[in-house]
């Protein structure tokens, strides 16, 4: 049993148990903190997949910013009265649970069917050899990622920048109170 195998099983536990907690716990603050745990676990999974930079970014962006926002908002709301945890409706509830269950089964089935074929792993990326070399030597592939991001996906990157600007402005517009920052709403 190699180190990677142990890590994988451990990490899948770290990822899945808090994920279940997110959905099942009725206190949203616990849900949020469980989700943080999941995010950290996902970051670790990224690291086991040689995506060290992405693991760091996952930590910074998700746990450091997105989830902090969630937790802050939750704590600000401070929901005193009990909120119904799950939605009602016998037919739709059954449909939802059944749908999710069937889908889970189908997904797993699809994956196990598909991975039996070797065609799921394809060669042919222009940077494949570099990446393979990096993976083989255990070296960092951040540089390859950067080359891909800034040379081949420049347009997407720029569009994302514009999107972020729009989002920033839109969020400020959405959440500001009427009459400026210091006015009471």
């Amino acid at each position, binding site marked *: 049993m190699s180190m990677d195998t142990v890590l994988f099983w451990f990490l899948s536990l770290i990822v899945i148990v808090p994920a279940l907690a997110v959905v099942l716990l009725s206190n949203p603050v616990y849900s949020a903190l469980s989700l943080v745990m999941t*995010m950290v676990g996902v970051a670790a999974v990224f690291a086991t997949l040689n995506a060290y930079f992405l693991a760091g970014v996952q930590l910074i962006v*998700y746990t450091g910013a*997105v989830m902090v*926002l*969630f937790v802050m908002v939750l704590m600000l709301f401070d929901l005193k009265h009990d909120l119904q945890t799950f939605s009602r409706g016998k037919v739709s509830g059954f449909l939802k649970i059944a749908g999710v269950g069937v889908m889970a089964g189908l997904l797993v089935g699809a994956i196990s069917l598909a991975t039996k074929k070797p065609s799921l792993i394809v060669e042919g990326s222009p940077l494949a050899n570099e990446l393979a070399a990096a993976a083989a030597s255990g070296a960092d592939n951040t540089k*390859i990622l950067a080359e*891909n*991001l800034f040379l081949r996906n420049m347009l997407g990157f720029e569009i994302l920048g514009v999107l972020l600007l729009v989002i*920033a402005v839109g*969020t400020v517009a959405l959440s500001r109170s009427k009459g400026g920052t210091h006015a009471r709403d």
Partner: protein
Amino acid sequence: MQEISLLLAVGLNHYLILSAILFTIGLSGVLLRRNLIVVMMSIELMLNAVNISFVAFSKYNYNPEGQVIVFFVMTIAAAEAAVGLAIIVSIFKRFKEVNIRFFEHLKG
């Protein structure tokens, strides 16, 4: 032997199944929870699930595009969270609750 090798030899499908499980958990959260914020968190869960499969494909296919996509997904997820939370705050200000049924008012 089959079971043991399944346990020991971790490969692409292990990661994919992990991703699928995470995705399904997130989906069930979206479908079933009433708290808007938890619904949004479940969406984040689904996005993370997809990210795992992207990175796994990236590693096993030696294709860096997968990681680039994950980078994009993260950015969009952050943006989505910001806007979504802003909307939720507005709804909370109006109804003093974040039950998802208040979102029905947005259908117009």
